[in-house]
């Protein structure tokens, strides 16, 4: 079961690196923010799987919860900022 978690972690790293394409040459600013948010939510799963591989799931789960809250607040703050400063972005 441990080797299965390692395999899934490696596959997940490949999956996480796919939206980097959209971040690098997204046509608009919103595409880049969307790709960054997608990478953040998938990293959350990667942290839990790393905790399973190391056998210290209880510590890594606390990190996961804090990371999820910070990711959510970051996306909401960027969306709010873009709403308030409208018209200057492509």
């Amino acid at each position, binding site marked *: *079961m441990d080797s*299965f978690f390692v395999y*899934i972690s490696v*596959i*997940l790293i490949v*999956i*996480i690196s*796919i*939206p980097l*394409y*959209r971040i690098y040459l997204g046509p*608009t600013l*919103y*595409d880049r*923010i*969307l*790709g960054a*948010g*997608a990478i953040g*939510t*998938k990293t*959350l*799963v990667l942290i*839990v*799987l790393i905790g*399973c591989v190391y056998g210290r*799931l*209880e510590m890594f*789960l*606390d990190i*996961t*919860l804090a990371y*999820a*809250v910070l*990711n*959510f607040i970051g*996306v*909401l703050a*960027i*969306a*709010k900022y*873009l*709403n308030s400063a*409208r*018209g200057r*972005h492509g």
Partner: protein
Amino acid sequence: MGEIQNLLAVLMISFGAFFMFVGSCGIVRLPDFYSRSHAASLGDTLGIILVLGGLMVYEGFTMNSAKLFIAIVFVAHASPTGSHAIARAAFRAGLKPWFKTNESDRE
């Protein structure tokens, strides 16, 4: 019992990784921002729910399982909300949706 638990966990985690892969491909392949945001929010949410649910099945009834359940509930609410907030900001800034026909044909 342990065998069934492991089998169910492997199946759920594999399907979750598959859905996250579909979401990533959708972010790269789809034609405009709104459809990309659809792919990102739906695929990621279902993938995370399946992977963390599979880990809950693998853990059994422990404290870790309860924390995983809290993480699932939080992600299931937060991921669509964040996606909606970005799409609303884009719509208010005047980003046009993509149509299959040209501008001139559409009248």
